[in-house]
C-alpha cells in the first residue's frame, strides 16, 4: 500500500515544482491541477474519501477553473503561433506521463483498498457531517458570514468604475 502513497507524493511534488517554475501561466495552472489531483489521491489513501472528492470538486474543479478563466481573460502567456508549439510533443509529454502515472496508481490502489479491511476504518461523510453541524455549528455560521463578505467584496472590486473625463479631453 505504501508504494501508492509515495508515487502520489512524488507526482504531487514534481508537478508543484513545475507549476511554480513555469513560464506560461496556463501550463503552470494545469500542472497545479495535476498536483491537486495527486494530493486528492493521497487523501483517498489516508482513508478520507469525502475530502478526496471535495478536493477534486472544489479545488481542482472550481477554484482552478476560476484561475484559468482569469488568466485567459487577461491574455497572459498566450502568444501568436502558439498552436504550433502546443502540437510539439515536448510541451505535453511530461504532464501526460505524470497524469498517466497518477491514474494507474489510483486504479491499482482502488482495487487493493477494496480488498483490504481498511475501508471500514475510513472516516465517512456521515461522521464528518454530524461533527460539522453539532460541534462546529458556530464555525459553520462564521464561515457563512465570511463567504457573504467574500461575495460582496468580489462584486465591489470586480465592478468596473466609470472613468470620468472632461468632455474636451475625450478623443473624437
Amino acid at each position: 500500500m505504501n508504494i501508492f502513497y509515495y508515487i502520489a507524493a512524488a507526482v504531487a511534488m514534481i508537478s508543484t515544482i513545475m507549476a511554480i517554475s513555469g513560464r506560461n501561466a496556463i501550463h503552470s495552472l494545469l500542472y497545479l491541477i495535476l498536483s491537486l489531483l495527486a494530493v486528492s489521491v493521497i487523501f483517498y489513501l489516508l482513508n478520507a474519501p469525502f475530502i478526496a472528492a471535495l478536493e477534486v470538486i472544489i479545488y481542482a474543479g472550481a477554484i482552478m477553473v476560476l484561475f484559468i478563466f482569469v488568466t485567459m481573460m487577461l491574455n497572459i502567456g498566450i502568444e501568436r503561433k502558439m498552436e504550433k508549439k502546443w502540437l510539439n510533443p515536448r510541451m505535453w509529454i511530461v504532464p501526460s506521463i505524470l497524469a498517466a502515472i497518477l491514474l494507474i496508481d489510483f486504479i491499482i490502489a482502488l482495487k487493493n483498498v477494496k480488498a483490504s479491511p481498511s475501508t471500514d476504518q475510513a472516516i465517512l461523510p456521515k461522521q464528518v457531517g454530524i461533527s460539522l453541524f453539532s460541534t462546529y455549528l458556530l464555525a459553520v455560521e462564521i464561515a457563512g458570514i465570511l463567504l457573504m463578505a467574500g461575495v460582496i467584496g468580489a462584486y465591489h472590486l470586480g465592478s468596473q468604475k466609470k472613468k470620468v473625463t472632461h468632455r474636451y479631453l475625450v478623443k473624437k
Partner: protein
Amino acid sequence: MLTVPIETQILIAGILFLLGLIGLLVRRNMIYMLMSIEIMFNSAGMVFIIAGTHWKQPDGQVMFIFILAVTAVEVAIGLALLLQVYHHFKTLDADSVNKLKD
C-alpha cells in the same frame, strides 16, 4: 492499510508548503503568487487530514472544509483585485504596483 509513518507524511506536507513559500517569494507575477498561496493552503489542509486520520477523528476533515471555504473567498477577492490591478497598470508585476497613490 497504509503504514507510512506520520513523520514522513508531515514531511511531505511540509515540502509542499515550502515549495509554495519559495514560489511566493521568488515569483513576482501576481497569478503565480496567488497559486503559491493555494499550494500553501492545500498543504496546511493536508496536515489536518493526516492528523485526523492518525487519531481517527472527523475533526481534521471538518477543519479542511473550513480551509476550503477560506480559500474560496481568498481566491475570489484576490482575482478581483488582480483584475483591477491589471486594468489600472496594464501589468501583473507585483513590484510595479508598490505605490499606493497613482
